[in-house]
């Protein structure tokens, strides 16, 4: 064990390249972001130190608070709907049903296509006058159920979230990489013991991919918290700010040349997200230790 532990030179050498890049592109710029968040600055005149005023203004702004709420909804939807769906599909595809290669490729394709095109497609699907959903409802005689999906406060947020949640490709390929790494001999042994498909997945696959599941959920939560693009393209926060998210708030403040408040949003987002992620990781690692102790 000695030679494994005390290789400081090797450790330092291996961490150095990533450390340098990370410092240059994250730590230092984030220092700048935090510094500017305490200033009043339009990018043109000199900065003026105003303490926590930007933060106070943010948290007194009901639109921003609504944005935080919506980001939480996003994070929950991605972590607890999208990731489990992706895991389910990964588990099915691992068993190599007919056409699994084709399916795996196609499921991932939406992630290759630009977001702009996907957003335009869904705007057309949801449109009240000529949209696919309303046309379908009218066709099957349910005209009363037609809606202006992206134009109503009740339906706009779910509509944007659903189109995103359906594209499981991203998490699917992460999870698939994990499930495919499980040696087939594990399953063969279980089959001999008479375990059915569900039992195999529950007792073999899930525990084996647990660490990757946690990775996926953590990623899903961060994507939910910093979500911006689909909302910007599909509703731009409307109607009546009902689909507002923090990223959009940041973008609007930036376009209004209010860098102080924009960076206060960025700092808040990182602090809130960081707290959540640390809590999650603690939760899982504690459970791990507890499980180890039992064994």
């Amino acid at each position: 064990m000695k030679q494994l532990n005390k290789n400081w030179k090797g450790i330092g050498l291996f961490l150095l390249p990533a450390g340098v890049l990370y410092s240059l592109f994250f730590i230092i710029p984030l220092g700048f972001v935090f510094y500017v968040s305490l200033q009043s600055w339009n990018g043109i005149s000199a900065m003026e130190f105003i303490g926590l005023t930007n933060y106070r203004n943010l948290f007194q702004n009901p639109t921003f608070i609504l944005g935080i709420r919506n980001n939480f909804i996003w994070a929950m939807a991605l972590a607890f709907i999208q990731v489990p769906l992706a895991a389910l599909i990964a588990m099915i595809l691992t068993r190599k049903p007919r056409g699994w290669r084709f399916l795996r490729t196609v499921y991932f394709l939406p992630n290759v296509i630009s977001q702009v095109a996907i957003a335009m497609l869904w705007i057309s699907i949801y449109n009240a006058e000529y949209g696919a959903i309303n046309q379908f409802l009218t066709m099957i005689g349910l005209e009363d159920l037609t809606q202006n999906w992206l134009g109503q406060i009740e339906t706009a947020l779910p509509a944007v979230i659903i189109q995103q949640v359906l594209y499981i490709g991203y998490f699917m390929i992460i999870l698939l990489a994990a499930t495919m790494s499980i040696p087939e001999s594990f399953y063969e042994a279980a089959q001999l013991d008479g375990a059915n498909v569900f039992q195999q997945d529950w007792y073999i696959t899930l525990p084996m991919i647990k660490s990757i599941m946690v990775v996926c959920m953590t990623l899903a939560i961060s994507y939910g918290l910093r979500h911006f693009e689909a909302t910007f393209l599909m509703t731009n926060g409307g109607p009546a700010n009902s689909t507002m998210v923090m990223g959009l708030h940041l973008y609007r403040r930036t376009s209004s040349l209010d860098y102080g408040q924009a960076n206060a949003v960025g700092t808040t987002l990182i602090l809130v997200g960081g707290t959540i992620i640390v809590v999650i990781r603690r939760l899982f690692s504690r459970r791990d230790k507890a499980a180890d102790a039992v064994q």
Partner: protein
Amino acid sequence: MRLNKTVAILLGVLLLAPALLIAGGGQQAAPEQREIVLNWPTIWVGQDAKATVVEQLVNEFNQANAGQIRINMQPSPDYDGYRDLINTSIAAGQVPDLFVFNVDPTQFQYYDGDLLMDFTDDLKGPWGNRFVDGAIQASTRNGRVKSVPFESALTPIWYNTALFERAGISQFPTTNAGFWEAAEKLKAAGIVPMSHMTGGTNAWTSMLWYSHIVANIGGPDVWSKPLSDPVFVQAAEILLRMYQDGNTTRDAVGADAGVSGGHYQAQNTAMFINGPWYIGNIRTNSPEAYANTRLAAFPGPGNYQGGQIGFLLSNLAAANTNDPARRAAVIKFMQWMTEPANVARLSLDSGALFTIRFDIPPGTEVDPLQQMFLEINSSATFIAEHFQANFPADVVAEFGQALGSMALGRSTPQQFIAQIRAAAGQ
């Protein structure tokens, strides 16, 4: 111990580096060169209507000044991206040699400090006489003109004569009562009266409708009034009515400019608002709607009839410099771009309007719809700006959100204005 030292040094560097970022970046290397190169990140590229002629003009300028001045165009497509590019460069202390900006209160902050070249004295001479009345005035802040007025816009009401005739209306109404009667007749004939939208970054079509209504009630100087003035609530009531009773399409709340324009092009709606840049698009996409289109003023209930909404669209700006040769080169180029003959070429090819007076060369064929724009521009009783020219970007964004809320019955016209006032800090 050695490790601790390394950690300490690393930490020190990390702490110092942000200071470097905050202070640095301002230095601008000015190598001694005989040829002056001016970099121009330009948005007028690709499929922009002005792209072809702008490129021709720059090439001609470069040829005429070969060896002395060279304009280096840096194609920078995407409108939002271009704005981010300019804002970011400026915030990082690197003002582009030449650039274009949209004329609104947010972008006018560029005038702060002395980042921009000041043209105040240059424009007092004959150069200034090339511009239409009020253009230089509108580009002045605190007595200084730090950008050259260039492209302007006029956004009259477009209406479809064929749809009006189908509803039994032979002429565009000239009274407010007539306007709403026409709307009823159109609906009776199964035609949606007008295109509206709350989406996009600025609720473009509806924001222009609102500007027309406000100008009709409050007159040409309406934007000098505070938002607490009753005119704004009164106009909001009319705007709300346009969203009710099938006066607009069902998808108007949440719609973007593509949807709103698409309905007019598909001849689903009989009225619409946009500027001359839309001519080329509608001509290729929907020749029928194009041929049926005529332009009008909004016949509102107010005392100011026959007015139009027009505004400065984009100004040319340049980085400030201490080098007289460089400054002379910039001014030479600005004067070239605002040369009446050159502007005539630009305008006739693209359909765009400009702040520079020019004569149409005899024998030139002008697009009929563009001709209507020129006519309505000169026959308007007055021209008022649009909402967007008077409020920063975040207030303009809030306009669409407040409108959506009002159109959905969540707020009253009073609350609509209150929401915008809150965003504007009034």
